[in-house]
């Protein structure tokens, strides 16, 4: 490598400084509400104390419990549907699309370029106003899946494009059925991509407000209850809920990281 001049050094660390400022900016609000959720003075929780009363009142609040169950159902079904569709799409584009790969890839990434609120409103228009159907969990799951589908597709495409398809063929030549080749060869090797897609789709559907809001009507979800509560001022329970979600997301991401790193070491050996 070229030797470091002072100018290189200055460029490097001014970029580094922007990075540090950005990460502090991204994480400071999250830490702030974590402290606030644990404090007796939620508005200005410094120095931090540790009082779990907002968590206790969250668990005894029945509105949040119903909303939590609805959100979990939507998020789970969305994650599965969007990962299955995304998996088909990824393999379709990588393996079967040939010269039209780019066309299909752009089409499958399309929902990324239509904002969530527009997806929610347009789906509502279709189901409710054109067909006269009331919004329900099924339509909410489908509409959420359209949004997360693009994320699933991109996550899996990024992780699968180095996959060597000859492995499937080798397994089939050795006498495995295509299903067995998929289950015993392909699935273990592509598991981190699938896991990444499941996590991303699950969490996006769990925390997204706009899409579910327009398709569910009066059925509460966690984000819609949080949004409703905002009108009456932020309460410590909201901080507690938010902190729990952040910690869960953080752990899921760590899990994904360990999984990807384990895969890398396994291939390196």
């Amino acid at each position, binding site marked *: 490598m*070229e030797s470091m001049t002072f*100018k290189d050094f200055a460029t*490097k660390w001014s*970029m*580094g400084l922007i*990075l540090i400022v950005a990460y502090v900016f*991204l994480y400071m*609000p*999250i830490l*702030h*509400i974590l402290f606030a959720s644990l404090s007796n003075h939620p*508005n*200005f929780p410094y120095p931090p104390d540790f009082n779990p009363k907002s968590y206790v009142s969250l668990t005894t609040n029945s509105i949040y419990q119903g909303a939590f169950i609805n959100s979990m159902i939507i998020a789970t079904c969305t994650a599965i549907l969007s990962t299955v569709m*995304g998996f*088909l*799409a990824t393999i*379709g*584009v990588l393996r*079967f*699309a040939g010269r039209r790969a780019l066309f*299909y*890839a*752009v089409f499958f*990434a*399309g929902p990324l*370029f*239509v*904002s*969530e609120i*527009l997806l929610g*409103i*347009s*789906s509502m*228009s*279709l189901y409710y*106003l*054109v067909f006269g159907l009331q919004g329900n969990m099924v339509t909410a799951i489908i509409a959420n*899946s*359209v949004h997360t589908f693009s994320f699933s597709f991109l996550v899996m*495409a*990024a992780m699968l*494009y180095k996959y060597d398809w000859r492995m499937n063929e080798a397994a089939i030549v050795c006498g495995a059925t295509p299903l067995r080749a998929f289950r015993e060869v392909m699935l273990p090797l592509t598991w981190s991509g699938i896991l990444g897609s499941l996590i*991303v789709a699950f969490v996006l559907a*769990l*925390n*997204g407000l*706009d899409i579910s809001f*327009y398709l569910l009507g009066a059925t509460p979800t966690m*984000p819609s209850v*949080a*949004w409703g509560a*905002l009108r009456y001022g932020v309460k410590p329970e909201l901080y507690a809920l*938010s902190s729990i979600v*952040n910690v869960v*997301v*953080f752990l899921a*991401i760590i899990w*994904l*990281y360990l999984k*990807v790193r384990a895969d890398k070491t396994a291939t390196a050996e």
Partner: protein
Amino acid sequence: MSEPNAATNKRLFLYVPTTFLFLFFVLPLIALVVLSLWQTENYKIVHEWTMMNYVTLATETAYITFFVRSLVMAILVSIFLVIVAWPIAFFIVRFGGKYKLIFSLLLAVPFLSGEVLRLIALQGMLGPAGLINGGLIRLGAAPLRFIMYSNSATFIAFVYLYLPMTVTTIYLSLLNFDMRLTSAASACGAGRSRIFFEVIWPLNLSGTIIGFLLAFIPTLSASLAPRFLGGPNGTLYGMSMAQQFGESGTWALGAAMGVVLVLFSVASLVVLSRAVNLRRTGFTGMER
């Protein structure tokens, strides 16, 4: 690849997701257009074809103001994000070493917390009694008025919401970029800024444009951030659209606003993607 069932596979793997998207993504957008050409009276849909909604949107000053405000906001936010995201992404790719993956995954945590919870967190920072102003008051200083219930607060919120997305897109683009090209340019005598503007920037332009669009499009139609943080003069187009579907019950007009937003998103996509070559972005892998 001459498997006997290749055609069946192709049908399954390509046509199933295509049908899924057509039914639940394209068809709703068509429904939105249809609805925008009808009318709503007293919370009921009147099935009469008319351009009235679009005339209203094009003539009433309030809607024009909201739209211009949204457009200016979206342009400012996305340009700012691109300028900030570049050094961050570049630093991670160039100097991140084995911590690259950690850095990029740490961006995903705030992104995945969802818009509502992130706005609550941000309100804890910016609000009248939040960390910044609370701290200033405690130190005996005057609170910063411009970060409370104003368009600046909304701007900060958009930067907060979409920074992870923009950084990730540019990061993926740079990750696929062959850094040896810069050494080659340097060996040929190019200076630092020339290497950047003639090698690094043009070869990562497509990733940059996608990053720009992924901030621009949701900002253009955002409804939650301005409603919560924007204050009295902060109404944006998406927020007004949400009100048509909520309180006012004028769905057809709201649908027309939705069509305007979709058309604008598509137009910005088409205009900017003339400069895009998807093969040079992080989302390759389609090329073998």
